[in-house]
């Protein structure tokens, strides 16, 4: 069993849902990322989604755009991100790490080569936002060949036929985008999400995570009522923005702890 499956199995046995924080690798400084990852785990993170900085983050709102920009000031590339994961793995062999980003930085390395490097670094899953299943055949095959999970998005606009197709291809978990919009938007409708998750369960066997627009413990609790995992990104990135390099880790740990408590 890989780390993602093991994590969901452990949580299920404990009657908990997964808390998945997102931060962008290299934000605010590449030297801090591994430390911040450990800080997320200290707060109770079950899985870490680590953003790959990209110059043109089309699916992201201003907060995560700024995180990418801060990382790119230091020229953080995907190979640097993999090196960070490798360092993280030296002292953490249990918390799954899922890379999240855009396809081009992966494409430029080449899918099989990237998959090997990612597996070697200790990555567990990969979500490329701008690569829907139609275009993901080669990348998914390369990832699965080294036992990495290709994680796919499902949106409120995804029709049933596509949901079935995504269900067939998904590994690890699927990520349900809770609203029509970019990351960090404010138009989340909890009732709507709950209904949608219930409908998705008919087709989807892997755990269902929900993200985009979840900002606090109260919403986390509500979403955790139906979903298997709750992803929080922009709110954590804002915490990094408001912190100093000295306080960032501690602030993240505290915030994740309140969110994790809402998934128990």
């Amino acid at each position, binding site marked *: 069993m890989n780390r993602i499956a093991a994590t969901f199995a452990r949580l299920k046995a404990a009657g908990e849902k997964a808390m998945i924080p997102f931060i962008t690798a290299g934000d605010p400084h590449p030297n801090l990322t591994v430390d911040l990852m450990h800080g997320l785990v200290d707060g109770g993170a079950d899985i870490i989604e680590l953003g790959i900085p990209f*110059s043109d983050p089309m699916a992201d709102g201003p907060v995560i755009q700024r995180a990418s920009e801060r990382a790119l000031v230091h020229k953080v590339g995907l190979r640097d991100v993999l090196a960070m994961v490798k360092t993280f793995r030296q002292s953490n062999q249990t918390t799954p790490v899922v890379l999240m980003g855009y396809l081009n930085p992966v494409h430029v390395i080449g899918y099989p080569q990237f998959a090997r490097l990612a597996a070697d670094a200790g990555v567990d899953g990969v979500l490329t936002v701008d690569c829907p299943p139609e275009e993901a055949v080669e990348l998914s095959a390369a990832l699965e060949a080294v036992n990495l999970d290709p994680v796919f998005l499902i949106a409120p606009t995804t029709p049933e036929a596509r949901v079935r197709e995504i269900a067939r291809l998904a590994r690890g978990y699927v990520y349900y985008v809770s609203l029509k919009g970019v990351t960090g938007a404010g138009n989340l409708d909890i009732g709507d999400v709950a209904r949608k998750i219930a409908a998705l369960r008919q087709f989807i066997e892997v755990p269902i995570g929900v993200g985009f627009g979840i900002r606090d413990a109260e919403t986390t609790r509500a979403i955790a009522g139906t979903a298997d995992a709750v992803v929080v990104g922009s709110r954590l990135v804002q915490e990094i923005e408001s912190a100093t390099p000295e306080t960032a880790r501690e602030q993240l740990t505290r915030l994740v702890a309140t969110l994790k408590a809402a998934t128990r």
Partner: protein
Amino acid sequence: MSQYDFPDARGHFGPFGGVYVAETLMAALDELKAEYARAKADPAFWQEFNYELKHFVGRPSPVYHAKRWSELLGGAQVYLKREDLNHTGAHKINNAIGQALLARRMGKKRVIAETGAGQHGVATATVAARYGMECVVYMGAEDIKRQAPNVFRMKLLGATVVPVESGSKTLKDALNEAMRDWVTNIDSTFYILGTAAGPHPYPMLVRDFVSVIGEEAKVQMPEMIGRQPDVVMACVGGGSNAIGTFYPYIDVPGVRLLGVEPAGDGLETGRHAAPLASNAPVGVLHGSRSYLMQDENGQIIETHSISAGLDYPGVGPEHSWLKDSGRADYVAVTDAEALAAFHDCCRLEGIIPALESSHALAQAVKLAPTMAKDQAILVTLSGRGDKDINTVAGLMGLTL
């Protein structure tokens, strides 16, 4: 010669094109694809499209023999396809009308667009006014500075112009922001994409709507000179005026297709926006796979061109395919060369060309003298240069 038949059902031109977007947009793109398939088979749709092109745009646009210039160059005869004479002053209106008619068929009351030089923004604002639609145009803050007259035109036409402050503050960033708007307002909004790039079906439908350029020329050239030209040329930003010129000629043997990209300060300086001519690697941006200016980490490189409409790191996927298949060639001319051609065109022919189009003209200046006097070059003059007079004055050290 086998029939050229691209893209395939999933939007691929060989290894290029495709649909590389976030899941939220997939259903909308499928809907657009389905609606376009219905429209394409509906004679009433084309009847209305052609009516608009004739009565609102003023088509057909003439082909004009640039006689004095040709004589001076001393080689091939240069003919200009006058898209500058279209209503709103560029080829962009052809595409904007086609997409607005699709939007209306789909019941969308709000349209959005990205714009670089402002020509596509003006075209979209124009058709939105004409069809009574709400219109929001995203434009890089840098481009808003260089294209002030077009910004005001859009406002006069009732559009909201949103300055984009992210990234390089140019066309690619405007496209990012338009995508973000679209994903947020997917139910109410039609995205009128301004060039032959983006996710399928955009490169195909933009091509189809702009192909009126080449279709007309194919009839006009034999009327003028008794045959088709030896070379057909156009400038390439995202590639819409070029593909609109080339597409009807792809299956015509003996006609050389030549795309002209902006070399900025010179290809060797790295400060340009010429992914094809500079042999950039293949990448994925804005919904499709194509040649793309990027660094070793796959980050998109900031581009440079004197012309805002060509200042884009990618290129429509069909041009990548035409390059690889050898059917078209792509070269680049510098800012300085384009500017010289701009002035020549003003003085010798009495036409103020857009800076974008001046790139194609500059290549004709290089090519014509190497050809025989009885040969013919057709250059698509994609737009007029009224919007550029502030930029050119600035370069001459003047303020207007």
